[in-house]
């Protein structure tokens, strides 16, 4: 397993911090299962990917899949802290137009509060 997932709360937003590689197989499955479980109790998630070195096509599919089902359930997942490689991948696949992407975790959290205010 080359992926580690830490979950914590900040100002009512659930931060899911990933480190390692999000790849097709048990890593992608673990991320999906974790996010699905979290979505059972919260509507606001920030996915901090600053320690993710690599995401493959399978991992990307998982990310979009969970994102779509979150949106369908009235929840929102925002991405934060993407490295250059992840930015490139989102750019090539034009998924930057789908996800809300922020430079830092704090910025992403703040947008949730701005929306609520």
């Amino acid at each position: 397993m080359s992926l580690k997932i830490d979950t914590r709360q900040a100002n009512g937003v659930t931060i899911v911090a990933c480190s390692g590689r999000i790849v097709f197989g048990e890593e992608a499955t673990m991320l999906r299962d974790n996010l699905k479980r979290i979505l059972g109790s919260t509507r606001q998630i920030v996915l901090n990917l600053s320690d993710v070195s690599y995401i493959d096509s399978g991992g990307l599919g998982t990310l979009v899949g969970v994102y779509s089902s979150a949106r369908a359930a009235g929840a929102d997942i925002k991405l934060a802290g993407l490295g250059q490689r992840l930015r490139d991948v989102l750019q090539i696949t034009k998924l930057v137009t789908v996800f809300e992407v922020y430079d830092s975790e704090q910025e992403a959290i703040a947008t949730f509060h701005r929306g609520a205010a």
Partner: protein
Amino acid sequence: MDFQTIVSPSSGTGSGVFPTLVFVQGNDQRIINLDHSPFGVGRKVDKDLVIADPRVSRDHALIVSENGVFSVIDQGSKHGTFVNGVRVERKTLERNDRLEFGVREVAYVIFNPQHGTTNSAREFLSQISGMHISDETTDLEKLVLFLEAARKLNTIGVLDEILMTLLDVTLKLTRAERAYVFMKNDQGELRLAAGRNSKGEPLLDDKTISHSILDDALKSNSEFVLTDTSRSVDLTGRKSIVAYDLRTVICVPLRKPQVQATRGAEVPVPALAAEAMGALYVDSRFASRDISGVSNDILHAIATEAASLIENARLVQAEEASRRYQQELSIAASIQQRLMAVTIPEVPFAKLQGRNLSCKEIGGDFFDAVNTEQGLTIVLADVSGKGVSAALLASTLQGMIYSQLTAGMPLTDIVTAVNRFFTHKHIGEKYATVIIARIRDNGDVEYVNCGHILPLVVSNGEVQRPAHGNLPVGLLPDAKYESDHCQLKPGDRFILVTDGVTEAENARGDFFEDSRLELAAKAGTLDQIFTAISDFCGGTPLNDDCTVVDLMYTG
């Protein structure tokens, strides 16, 4: 007592097993593999079977095999060779023949070959357990003999047969009335796997057994539980015992054999900590079939050996299942290879080359080329993930795109239709990056890139990466797709790759990356690109398929 190896199921005798000799001398007995011919018998120490008795000649007799038929040949012995009590010079041997060499009664050999191909594992096991063995052999020894034999049997699909034979042997040894094996299923629930009564009839129903004792035995840490109801005072909650008048119940939890780490002189920990994978249950109703006196040694042997026996059989079954799965996979892989084998259309204005380097696992890459009135169209796609599901989706995708290309549909309509189909079918998290490019005889290339690695346009030794792009197909149902154009001059190349190329890894975990790809594309041909990839990777195996398509406009 020395029990020798009995069986090699893979031996080439045609019967599936070697014939065996059971050598009985006084209280001692041995099972000997008749695995070579001639097999010498005599008093000399170099004989295959040495009988140390003055009445046995030094070179007494030979047992020979000719075309699977075994014979005994006397070697001019002083006191003679006997088969079933008759003195012979040469005699063909039949199963269970009794052979005597000079010395009568005190030492003899039972010849017991396995005949024919109908020999099922069960038949074999019961032969072993029911074999004519001298009366001095204890029940425990017979059991050990049986278990030894069964463990060596790695025949496919023998689990049921092993269970049945285990029950028969247990019934015989304990003289109990009924015996059952229960195995845990994937949910951890006990399920009846096999049942037999002392008449050898199968028992398919477990309603009349004491489930409370079964449960207790599983929960307890004991090796086996023996319940003698005539001595037990408190039968509350033991409904079956009262209702069916069960007199004695033996329950043996079957625990997976555990490998214990031995630490110095510490007393080895008994393998009781392991969770039970099932249970062997034996009971009797009648006083005449009192089984409470069954030797603890026998129960101990059953408890420790039966579990490993079943575990072995299960492993063999799992291996077979995985072998079949591998076979399916290789079929899928060859189907995919055929899909990848594209007949490249000849056109006067362009030269097209495509090559795929497959990784070990089946991937979801495909490449296609179709020549229509509108021009030469090339397709390169990569379905996310790997394995059979990715390959299946790739071939569906290929079929859809091919049929729409030949129908002359606009490129954006094609990918929109494919996207609608994939998202409508809810294929889950599977999607595909696709690039479709169509070149006309005037050098105009129209292409639609759906989340795929950017194409390389090589012109005058310079590499351009046109940044046009769309969402991949199969992710979002309402995605909109647009195409772009670029103009090639004669000698310009339009190169497409899959991410297996840019993400090819070397031993240090570095990727091939766009920069190396661009250098290689600038420098040379398709062959040189692949050479650059393999030079970079060294011996590191590919994680993903590498596909490169090289289109050159010749004008």
